[in-house]
Structure formats: C-alpha cells, structure tokens
C-alpha cells in the first residue's frame, strides 16, 4: 500500500457514509405514508455504528461491498432502539427535532420500532449464504436480547435508591449502549472472515468504546453538555435512573451524606434547585470522576488495541472515531485529547 496520507481520510470516510446512505435509502414500502414515517425514523444521527461495521471489516482486509447489508441492519437496529428509548424515557426532542413519537404518536413509535428491527432481521435472513444468514441472525438476536434486558433493568430500577451491586450497574451500562457498538465491530470482523481471536478482540474494542460512550453520556447529562443533543439536562435525575454515577455515590458516600442524598432523591425532583443540589453531591462524591476515569481507561485500551492492526485508512478512521466522532456535539474532545496518546500517528 502507498504511504497513507491523513488528507485522504475525509474523502475515504465520506465515500463509505454515502454508500451506507444509498443502501438505507433503497428500502421502500408500497405506501407513501409509511415511507414518510420510515424516512423520518431512519434520518439523522452520525451513522457511527454502520461506519464501525464497514471500517472494522476493511481494517481487517475485507471489502466494502460485502459489508453494506450488515451495516444497514445495524443502523436499523439502532434506530429501533432510539424510537423505543425516546418513547420509554419520554424524551420529546432528539438532535434538534421532534422525537419520532412526538411527531407521529406513541402507537406509531411502538410499531415502527418493531418494523425497523424486523426489517434488520429480514435483510440478514435473506443473505445469499444461508450459513451467513444464520450466523448473523444469531449474533443480532443475542445482542438484541442484551440491549432489551438492559433497557428493562433500567426502567425497573428507576427510583430505587438502595445500594446496588456496582458490577450489575456497570453491566447495565454496557447492555444499554455497549452492545450495539460490540455488534458493529464484531460483525465487521466476522464479515472479514478472520480467526476467532481477532473477532473476539474487535468485539471487545466495540464494547469498550460503546460503554465509555454511555458513561460519558451519563456525565454529560449532569453537566449540561448533553443538552446540545436535545436531551434535557438532569433528565436522568428526574427519572431517577440508576446510572453508574448514582450507584457509585450511594456506595461510597459517608452514611450521613448518603442519607441526605437518598432523602433528596425520595422527593419528587422537580425544582432546578433540588436537581442542582443532587448533581453537586454526585460531583463532590467523586462518582463523576470515577465514571470519567473508567470511560477514559476503556477509550485508551481501545486505541491501544487498534494500534496492533495493520496500517490502513480504515484503521485511521477507526482511531478518529474513538478520538473525535464521540466528541462531536459534546466536550468529549477535550477528555479524549487529554488521555495519553498511544502508538498512533
């Protein structure tokens, strides 16, 4: 391969993104009203997950063409979870426009989420090689279950203020977001037909990036940075979500402060004052730092594991995603920039 030039990177990524867009746009229903809703559901977002599928495959020597069906299936699964998550969390806005349920109604959001996920399985199941179809459907179903389990745990744990097993909480953070990232990189690796240990390594890479992503989302919901994505500041507190941050604070605060926090949480957290007070306690407890440290460690490990791949534009693009794409629309760039550089150009 010729010497790589970083200046080629934007065009390289743009080409992949437009290939993904073209495939997504090719899905139609024989009903203009359904097409309109479908387009709304599928539009928007940075396409990080399908891009991860494509790049992971190409970084391991696979070809772009063979990845697109899988990439589209991953994006549809992601959009399905976006529709259902916004519905369940009653978030009205996403990325500056109305959430699907706010635009088309809750019933349609519930049904469209199921339509998206079943379309993903339909695409995979109709792959020419029935061996691939079966393998990828199995992979998707395992991830789909874990993601739904994380969501169920999330909803069922709201408002529980007792101390909980931190490992379980961390696992739920993985289930909520890490799963689909893991799916993306693992699928990419499998599409490249590499040996199982490499598949394992790529799966772990996605898992780390995705779970770090979730922890940073939790952090940004507290410090207000997430507002730029349309989610209301403190919405996790209002819903009394069991984030790692809250769980860590409950587990480590001195008894008196813990009782104070629990008392605050037991009230209906509606006034900006009470919310800010809780956020301040979480910050002071060191829980926020702990979450950020954990995220940073994973991102560093992810970058380390990337540096062992052969040099390629795909690898550079993957590194850029770990470093920058996560950072768009938030202040993560600083955080990632401040993590020690590792074997990367």
């Amino acid at each position, binding site marked *: 391969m010729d010497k790589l030039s970083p200046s080629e990177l934007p065009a390289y990524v743009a080409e992949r993104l437009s290939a993904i867009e073209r495939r997504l746009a090719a899905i139609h229903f024989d009903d203009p009203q359904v097409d309109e809703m479908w387009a709304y559901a599928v539009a928007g977002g940075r396409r990080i997950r399908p891009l991860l599928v494509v790049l992971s495959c190409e970084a391991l020597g696979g070809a772009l063409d063979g990845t697109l069906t899988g990439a589209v299936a991953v994006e549809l699964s992601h959009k399905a979870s976006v529709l259902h998550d916004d519905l*369940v969390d009653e978030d009205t806005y996403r990325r500056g426009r109305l959430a699907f349920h706010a635009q088309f109604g809750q019933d349609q959001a519930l049904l469209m989420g199921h339509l998206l996920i079943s379309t993903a399985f339909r695409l995979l199941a109709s792959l020419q090689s029935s061996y691939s179809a079966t393998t990828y459907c199995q992979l998707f179903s395992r991830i789909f279950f874990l993601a739904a*389990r994380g969501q*169920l745990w999330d909803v069922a744990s709201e408002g529980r203020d007792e101390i909980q097993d931190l490992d379980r909480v961390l696992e739920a953070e993985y289930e909520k977001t890490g799963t689909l990232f893991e799916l993306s990189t693992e699928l990419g690796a499998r599409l490249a037909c590499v040996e199982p240990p490499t598949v394992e390594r790529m799966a772990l890479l996605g898992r780390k990036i995705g779970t770090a992503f979730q922890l940073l989302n939790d952090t940004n919901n507290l410090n207000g940075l997430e507002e730029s994505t349309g989610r209301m500041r403190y919405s996790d507190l209002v819903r009394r979500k069991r984030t790692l941050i809250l769980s860590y604070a409950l587990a480590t605060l001195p008894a008196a402060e813990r009782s104070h926090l629990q008392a605050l949480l037991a009230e209906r957290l509606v006034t900006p004052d009470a919310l800010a007070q809780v956020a301040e306690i979480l910050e002071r407890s060191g829980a926020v730092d702990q979450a950020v440290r954990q995220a940073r460690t994973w991102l560093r490990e992810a970058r380390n594991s990337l540096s062992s791949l052969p040099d390629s534009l795909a690898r550079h693009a993957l590194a850029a995603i770990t470093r920058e794409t996560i950072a768009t629309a938030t202040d993560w760039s600083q955080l990632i920039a401040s993590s020690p550089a590792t074997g990367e150009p």
Partner: protein
Amino acid sequence: MLRLIYQAILGRVVEEINAGLLVDSFREPDLNRMYIQAVSGGRRSRALLVLAGCEAVGGRRRAAMPMALAMELAHKASLIVDDVVDRDLLRRGRPTFHARYGPRQAVVMSDILMSLAYQQLTKFDRSDESHVVAECYRLLSDTYHTMCLGEIQELLLDEGGMSEDNTLAVAHKKSGLMIENCLRAGGMLGRGQEAEIAALGEFGRSIGLAFQLINDLNSVKDIEGHTGRPVGNDLRIGRMNFLAAHALRRANAADRSRLGQLLAADELETTQVQESIELLHRSGAVRAAEEQIRALLEEARKSLGPLRLSIIKTLFLKVIDHAGDPWLWTS
C-alpha cells in the same frame, strides 16, 4: 368436542411448550416475574400450529420446537403491542400487561419477547442444515414485519374508504400470515414435500381469515366475553372490520350515514352499540360475513387434499367442522 381433543391430545404438548417458555432469563426475581406474566395465559395456539404442521408431514415435533416457541413469543409480543395500541385493559379476563405494569414497561417487554423469539432459533440441533434455520429466521422476521406493517397501515387508513377486501387484507397481515407461516414452518421442519408444505400454508391462510371473520361476528353477537372484551368492542372504538366496511358500502343512504356517525364518535353508549349492531344486521353485513366464512372454510377443507392421512389432518378437519364452536372463542 374441541375442548376434549385439546385436553386429551394436546395437554401434554402444551406442558412441553410451557416448559420451554416459562424459564428465567434474568437474575432479578422481579424481572422474571414480569416476564412470566407476559408469556402466561392463552392456549399456545401458535406453537401448537408449528408442531401440528411438523407432525402432519410425518416429522417429529422435537424438530420444530424452537420455531414453535419462537412463533409463540412473537405472538405474545404482538399481543402486548396490540393491547397498548387498542387501549385494552383486559384480555381473557386478566389485566393486560400494560394495564398491570404500565405502557413504558410494555414497550420494553415487547422488545424482550421479540429478542427471545429470535434467540429460540439458536436452539436447533447442530445437524439441522443451515438453509432450514435461515428459512426459519426469514419466516419469523417476515411474519412480524408484515404484522407491524398491517398495524401501522390500519392506524393510517382512511376508514371511510376501506372496502371489505381491504379489511381482509389487513386481517391477513395482522394475524392470518402468522397462522399460515406457523404451519408452513412446521411442514418444512418436519421435512415435508413441497406440495404438503404449500397445502399447510393454504389451509392456514383460509382458516386464519375465517377465524378473523368469526371473531368479528362474535363481537357483535351475544357471546359474552368471547375474548374477555365487551360486546361490540370494535364498534365502540370505531375499528373498521369486514362487517362495518360491508355495511358502509351496501346499506341504504340513511343507515350508511348513521353508521358513519356512530363509528366516528369517540365513545358509544350501550344503546348506541345496540343500534350499530342492528344497522349491521339490516345491511346484510352479518349474512355476507357468514357466507364468506363458509367459503373460506370450504377452501380450507380443499387445501388439505394433498396432506397424508394422520391424526393431525383429522384434527384440522374437526377444527373446520367446529370453527364456530364457542369453546374456541370463550375464555
């Protein structure tokens, strides 16, 4: 008669199905309880159809069990979704999932059940050829996909413009295709011949539509609690079914406009429900539905032709003979 068959022959099979469904998938006891609540109840008819399709072509039902459980879970997921969309608080006399746990939990549980449905298909024997397993994924995703599309379209449809055929097409998408695909999948997993699998599919298609029409008819008759729902429920919520579509096109002008008014109303009094039912009778809609059911059952009987003689075939013929049997429709 049907109750007897169900209890004598199918009772043990239902136990096997339950053993496959009622398992803990979570570490948290409260989540397991929630899941068990979501999959309990009903007669396991979707699972039974897959197993019946398998045995009808001479297969062993163990070969079809993962698909049977998958279809049953998908069916349960669709019931949770249906009940949310229809705002139904009771099903077969029990509180619906969202009535008990809330709509947010219902959304998530429907996802859990669908993911578990797909997960079932990882449980086929290694010896199963991958094209058979891939076909199961295809049938399952296709069935659920079509079902969702049918529901979405039903919510979008301009009700006044719906013909009887439209209502039958929607009914096929929403429930008929699943019955058809359950039988088809069973036939395929039982390694039946092409003609047998096709026969099972056609039988499923006709009997599925007939069941939908019988259901529509029951809802305007006085079969109390045929699904645990009040009489005239479709009319109450203004849902367009075959009967209403027929009446809106065929009744005289005065009746047509009155029925249109009643269906458009937000909430109907009991006397207004009675009035709507009378309008349906007078328009000939009830008679038309009965004729349509007879024709569909006849098609179902004919489609069984290529199927070899077996207990299952006898059972299918009995179901056709007794399709209106209140036992099928009461809780």
